[in-house]
């Protein structure tokens, strides 16, 4: 691992109000997988954007192949063989997969006419998609892809560059375990070909399984480096948050009670020919696992009234409830923390205060006029209770880190009276500290008697947090695991549609 491929030294980056990077040094060797970890807002993405030429550093130099650059442009970075899988998806829904993969560096034909050579680009993208195990084609419109599938397009984009270094900024945040596995295999393959990978993830398990070396950032500074043989969850967490995390998962304080939510024979528009049966008791956290596109989000959306319910019945505490719209669902105490918090969870440009009270505003109003004092109090209470890190509740949600944004979404619901809560990928892209806070919040909600369904693609999380785990496969529930049956192997068997190997198959 001796040969240094590129080196960043003394990189600083100041944003209005934030010192995102402060004199950071980073070295990448040829053919190594460098794990880059840190809390939300530690500066990982900023550092990588500097390297990829997307933003200009305030200070520092980038050294590549003997050349020094004070800054780079996207084109230069690409020429230097740097490929970037962006954390925020930078795709164009109106273009097809191949066009997206080659955007900005199209294959041309027709000489001076600069025509786009679609055939050539499609031919080149096809093998990449196969390598990633994607089941869409180069001509599929990105608009028709799910978030996970879009993430694969981003990865294909990076692979398509004849790269020496591939930066992957949380490439798996939306992927489930099998796609993640695929990706890790691809990374191993890249490494074998002498290509370096900078791998950023909040899923420490992935870092453990692929990184040769881990660099930890905190508050814009490098706080430590771990060699392969020093890697452990505890060590990484200690460096990231500056102390030990006592317990990631909080155990339940009391046993589940009868009642809760029963979903019988529910049919969603994603799988019009499948029925879903599921029940979650009060005080219990039901993990809902499955592969990408298994229909978990569709179920949550249908129960929450966003999508039409094509059939079946939803009962809460044995009383049937009608949910024709989210408004109905909310009235019944069914809340959803959506998968895409920026798109569906928050109005990013509104202040925290207004986001927290958005759903319950009428309760803080007299004669339809907002009672600002009451509103502010609610928001402040939630901010304190959820320890939302923000100078005040009047700042716009867009300025918060992902974890804090997620907490604002939670605050919105917790200021009301939940009976059944769906969390769809509640910790996506969230650092380990914030994760543990959110787990603790979910647990305390359950302990208050709320029935909780946690949709998650993070296997550790599913097994660590849930009281029971239901697994979906192609639009229906393929089995439910009790705590003593929890294992990744069992979850996976159900997720791909196999029965459990043991005799006591999904009993309840």
């Amino acid at each position, binding site marked *: 691992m001796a040969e240094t491929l590129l080196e960043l030294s003394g990189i600083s980056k*100041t*944003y*209005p*109000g*934030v*010192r995102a990077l402060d004199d950071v040094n980073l070295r990448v060797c040829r053919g190594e997988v460098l794990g880059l970890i840190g*809390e939300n807002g530690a500066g990982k993405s900023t550092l990588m954007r500097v390297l990829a030429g997307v933003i200009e550093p305030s200070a520092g130099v980038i050294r590549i192949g003997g050349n020094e650059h004070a800054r780079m442009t996207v084109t230069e970075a690409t020429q230097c063989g740097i490929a970037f899988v962006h954390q925020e998806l930078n795709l164009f829904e109106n273009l097809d997969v191949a066009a997206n993969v080659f955007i900005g560096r199209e294959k041309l034909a027709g000489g001076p006419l600069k025509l786009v050579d679609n055939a050539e680009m499609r031919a080149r993208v096809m093998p990449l998609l196969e390598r990633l195990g994607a089941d869409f084609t180069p001509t599929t419109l990105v608009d028709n892809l799910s978030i996970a599938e879009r993430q694969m397009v981003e990865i294909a984009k990076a692979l398509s560059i004849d790269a020496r270094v591939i930066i992957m900024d949380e490439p798996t945040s939306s992927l489930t375990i099998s796609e993640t596995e695929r990706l890790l295999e691809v990374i191993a393959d890249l490494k074998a070909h002498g290509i370096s990978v900078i791998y950023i993830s909040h899923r420490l398990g992935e870092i453990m399984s692929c990184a040769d070396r881990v660099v930890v950032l905190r*508050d814009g500074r490098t706080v430590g480096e771990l060699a392969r043989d020093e890697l452990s969850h505890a060590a990484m967490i200690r460096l990231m*948050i*500056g*102390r030990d995390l*006592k*317990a990631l998962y*909080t155990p339940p*304080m009391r046993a589940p009670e009868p009642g809760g939510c029963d979903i019988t024979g529910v049919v969603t528009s994603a799988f019009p020919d499948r029925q879903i049966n599921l029940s979650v008791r009060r005080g219990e956290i039901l993990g809902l696992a499955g592969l990408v596109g298994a229909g978990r989000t569709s179920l949550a959306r249908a129960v*929450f009234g*966003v999508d039409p319910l094509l059939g079946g019945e939803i009962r809460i505490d044995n009383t049937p409830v009608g949910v024709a*719209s*989210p*408004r109905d*669902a*909310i*009235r019944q105490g069914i809340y*959803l923390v*959506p998968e895409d918090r920026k*798109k*569906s*969870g*928050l*109005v*990013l*440009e*509104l202040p925290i205060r*207004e986001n927290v009270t*958005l*759903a319950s*505003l*009428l309760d803080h*109003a007299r004669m*339809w*006029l*907002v009672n600002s004092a009451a509103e502010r109090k609610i928001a402040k209470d939630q901010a304190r*209770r959820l*320890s939302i*890190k923000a*100078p005040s509740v009047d700042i716009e949600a867009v300025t918060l880190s992902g974890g804090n944004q997620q907490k604002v979404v939670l605050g*919105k619901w917790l200021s009301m009276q939940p009976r059944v809560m769906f969390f769809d990928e509640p910790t996506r892209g969230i650092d380990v*500290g914030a994760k*543990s*806070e959110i787990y*603790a*919040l979910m*647990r*305390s*909600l359950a*302990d*208050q008697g709320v029935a909780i369904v946690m949709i998650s693609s993070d296997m550790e999380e599913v097994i660590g947090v849930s009281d029971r785990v239901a697994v979906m496969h192609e639009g229906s529930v393929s089995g439910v695991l009790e705590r003593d049956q929890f294992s990744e192997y069992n979850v996976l068997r159900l997720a791909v549609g196999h029965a459990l190997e043991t005799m006591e198959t999904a009993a309840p």
Partner: protein
Amino acid sequence: MMKKELGLFLLLAVISAITGAINPAFLSFVNLLNMANLIGLFGVFALGEGLVIITGGIDLSLGSMFALLGVVFIDLLTTYQVPWPLALLLVLMGGLALGGIQGFLITRLKMQPFIVTLCGLLIYRGAARYYTSDSTRGFGYGDEASTLSNIASGNIGGIPNTFIFLIILALVLGVLLHRSVYGRWLYAVGKNEEAARFSGINTNLVIATAYVISGGLAGVSTVMFVFYTNSVSPSSFGNFYELYAIAAAVLGGCSLRGGEGSILGIVLGTALLQVLQNLVNILGIPNSLNFAVMGTVILIGVLADQQLQARRRRKAALASLARTAPKSKDSTILQSAALPTRAGDQA
């Protein structure tokens, strides 16, 4: 929020001061009242347009609504001798209904606001022209509705009623938009409709209501314009007034992308447009240059405002950097340390 409005206000003040210095007649009482009257006339429907723009939509049909509702209104009063309160009511209901139809098409049938209201523009204008066979409608001897005429075009202590009405309306809508639950919803829907829906807001209703309000205000404006001109020519009455309204709203800080804007801004935007037109006449600038002056002033005004705001934002950012930089570091540690216990006692 208020900075945008302040900039606009300053622009207005500067323009007025310069014009007044060149020709004192500009600041004469009569002229100010004339302007107030026009601001009242144009401000009312600009407010409705503003609400629609805040939802992220657009209403292109206003001018044609004036024509259709105007000819119907005059016909009700003159040909059918309907008592004026009833005629007034019918016209208001007509405006609300047209707005409601547009709102329905946009929210329920998911059509683009631009298309729906463009069709509205064409259909209402056509209907007005067909209904009257292209002939101008007016009050023969003007006494069919003298009470209403006095209300709509009269004044109180010299101040035109239209202006007084605009002020009252602006206050009411200001409370609605900036203080009420509905207003909050309107901004939320304009910024991010999906998130609003996920928060249990009936977004269709919120958006449709904006179109209904805009339609209703178009009804009110119709009556005011009818008594301003005392006649309605179906092919030209209100022609392209929607562009004035959109320009006023956009000048006043509404973004066509939705979710931005304020009542005060819209009123100031309307005022700016009217002042610009007035000063061309007052200064004796060749009338043909009217448009050019208006365009130039708007362009320069917006540009200046933008540069000023950018500079202010940069300054504010630097200031906040100095303030927050040291804090963020240790605060995270403290909080995370305190967490497990706190999370526990939520039970």
